[in-house]
């Protein structure tokens, strides 16, 4: 075991990278070596017992793995990649992390500083390219600047509204010698990550809530990021307010609680969408009114006073006007709010949600989880998987129909157990993100629920699972279509199925080639047993379930429609 001696005179820049990560309490890194980052990988060789490195099969996979890691652990995900194509391959994952507020620290190698701007081999302006999709980035050309840049990177990535940062380090900086000093960064003069909660605004929020007849809470990812689950529960219970969740907020509120009314958005639950336009006070906590949640903004909650709890000032009034905005950390704000809120009962208002749930159950849920069709349907698979795992698994989804079905039918009992690509909608996210999630939470069951399309976008990460022996479970819902696009083609493009049908390979055979056990299920009678075998496997396992080709996800709010125009079939 190599130990850095503090009195040692000098280290290389590359070693300073590794030492900085260790000082930042990093234990795991996802990455891929290459020319311009070779000195860092060489330094890593001496620290393999202190820093676990997972070799992915494509740099995009490293970013998604780091995202999955971060989302279930609350720690920043760390990525290594080389210059040029290595760096550009990170962009999708970085963009995904930016829009879903996930802290990543990406470290890229860069060509020698004297070659910058010369179109050198594997030179690309990654600082320029990543600028619109990072919270912050920097290029370092001197060894002595490495430790301060990395310290700053961790502070920025994890503070306030989290996000991805990128540190690009030229090869000569990695080779250069420097005295190693790591000073944790705790403030930056021009950066105000977390506004202090203003008590006056909290009082105004309390007044609106106390006078409301039909208050309604929308909880988002911010509740999870702030760790405000308990405060949210206390608020909802004290003032007897129904709670709905955004896609990324799932798990922030217990799904079995009588005040939990469901999931918001384009394919969310009926009542939570419909009744947005009937509440009188809308309490948005740690959410940003994404267009998938609001539908047509000009017809969104016009009757309601809006109270917005938000850490990022630029999100307030961005989409929906806030009558009261409480800036700051959600947990801190809700703690201040709680004593000001009166105990109330809103039985009649809650009854409306119950009635809507009944309608949705009769028209959608009943048939979805127990279909009369010959072929299996996605919702029954997820429903059975939910029952089997009792809502306790970490479920990582890709993007598309299977994602919406999972969000609808898997009930997350715990916070930070739902990992999905929300804002960016990145197909290919699921498999590598599940790898990262399992690395972060080795004692929990991690199941990647994937579609046949998204699976094949990052299917090479089966190699990462094999090499690093990561017991991830993979549930592929195969309808031999890019199902969500096909659904839209059916509904809005006159059934012209332009390039959405997939001729798929033998997924089980592919898994087997990577030494991953697998099974394919086509019959209903075999489903339960197969799910059990997958879930209880001690090793990585792939279960392919062949489902109906042309199943649609309902309810649905079509483009341009209002939340109250949600259709059930």
């Amino acid at each position, binding site marked *: 075991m190599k130990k850095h001696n503090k009195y040692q005179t000098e280290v290389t820049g590359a070693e300073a990278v590794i030492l900085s990560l260790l000082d930042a309490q990093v234990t795991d890194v996802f990455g891929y070596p290459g020319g311009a980052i070779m000195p860092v990988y060489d330094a890593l060789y001496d620290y393999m017992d202190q820093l676990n490195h997972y070799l992915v099969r494509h740099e995009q996979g490293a970013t998604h793995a780091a995202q999955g890691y971060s989302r279930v652990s609350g720690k920043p995900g760390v990525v290594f990649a080389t210059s040029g194509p290595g760096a550009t391959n990170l962009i999708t994952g970085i963009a995904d992390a930016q829009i879903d507020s996930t802290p990543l620290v990406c470290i890229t190698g860069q060509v020698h500083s004297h070659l910058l701007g010369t179109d050198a081999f594997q030179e690309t302006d990654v600082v320029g390219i990543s600028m619109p999709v990072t919270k912050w980035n920097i290029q370092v050309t001197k060894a002595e600047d490495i430790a301060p840049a990395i310290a700053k990177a961790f502070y920025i990535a994890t503070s306030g509204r989290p996000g991805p940062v990128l540190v690009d380090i030229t090869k000569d900086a990695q080779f250069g010698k420097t005295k190693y000093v790591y000073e944790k960064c705790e403030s930056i003069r*021009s950066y105000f990550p977390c*506004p202090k909660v203003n008590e006056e605004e909290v009082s105004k929020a309390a007044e609106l809530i106390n006078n409301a007849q039909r208050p309604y809470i929308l909880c988002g990812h911010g509740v999870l990021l702030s760790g405000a689950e308990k405060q949210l529960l206390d608020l909802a219970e004290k003032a007897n307010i129904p709670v709905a969740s955004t896609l990324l907020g799932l798990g922030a509120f217990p799904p079995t609680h009588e005040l939990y009314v469901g999931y918001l958005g384009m394919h969310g639950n009926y009542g939570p969408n419909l009744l947005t336009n009937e509440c009188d006070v809308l309490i948005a906590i740690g959410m940003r009114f994404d267009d998938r949640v609001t539908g047509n903004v000009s017809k969104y909650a016009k009757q309601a006073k809006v109270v917005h709890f938000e850490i990022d*000032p630029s999100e307030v009034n961005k989409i929906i006007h806030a009558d009261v905005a409480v800036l700051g950390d959600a947990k801190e704000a809700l703690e201040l709010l709680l004593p000001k809120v009166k105990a109330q009962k809103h039985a009649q208002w809650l009854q409306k949600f119950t009635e809507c749930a009944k309608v949705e159950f009769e028209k959608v849920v009943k048939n979805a989880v127990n279909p009369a069709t010959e072929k299996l349907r996605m919702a029954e698979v997820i429903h059975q998987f939910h029952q089997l795992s009792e809502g306790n698994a970490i479920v990582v989804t890709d993007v598309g129909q299977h994602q919406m079905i999972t969000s609808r039918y898997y009930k997350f009992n715990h916070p930070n157990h739902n990992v999905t690509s929300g804002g960016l909608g990145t197909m290919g996210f699921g498999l590598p993100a599940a790898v990262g999630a399992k690395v972060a939470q080795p004692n929990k069951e991690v199941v990647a629920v994937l579609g046949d399309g998204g699976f094949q976008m990052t299917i090479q990460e089966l190699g990462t699972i094999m090499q690093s022996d990561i017991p991830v479970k993979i549930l592929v819902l195969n309808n031999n279509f890019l199902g969500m696009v096909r659904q839209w083609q059916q509904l809005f493009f006159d059934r012209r199925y332009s390039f959405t049908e997939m001729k798929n390979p033998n997924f089980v055979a592919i898994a087997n080639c990577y030494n991953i056990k697998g099974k394919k299920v086509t019959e209903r009678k075999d489903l339960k047993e197969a799910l059990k075998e997958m879930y209880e496997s001690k090793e990585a396992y792939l279960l392919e379930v062949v489902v109906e080709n042309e199943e649609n996800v309902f309810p649905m709010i079509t483009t341009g429609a209002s939340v109250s125009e949600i259709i059930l079939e």
Partner: protein
Amino acid sequence: MENTYTLSIFTEDKIGLLNRVTIIFTRRHINIESITASESEVKGIYRYTIVVTVSQEQVEKLVGQIEKQVEVLKAFYHINNDILSREMALYKVSADALKENELFTRIVNENHAKILSISPEFIVIEKTGDEREIKHLFNDLEKFGMLEFVRSGRVAITKPMKTLNTFLKEVENNSKTTVKHFNK
């Protein structure tokens, strides 16, 4: 309703930050009408002056996104009444203008411009003023044959009295737990 706004943005000295700021405009398909960047009265702190024509709502959102950037200290937006602003222009006209010396000199004097250089082929005139005044001189000089014309971006000083130094002291106290009253 669209209006002309002047944005004053105070930033740390960092390579690439101007790019980060301009991306915010281009991403929203907003044209930057003029831009200047220079060090402010405080060493190490830069001031960008950007002019755009947008709605009140748009300018508020722009400023919000700009302030979100880690190395931006503060961004302000102003309508024309709130600022004193100037642009500078250089005009190169043919030396033939001297053939009508009296008229030429009168135009330069009446426009509060000054002659920067005279050579056998051309004369360079310098003018500081607002956009309208600069355009006015352009029109007057055009008859002598305009060989070249260049106008700077706007520089602006705000009328409200709050020095950058007092503001800096505030942010230094606040950068750990900032109080920012968005609603006010």
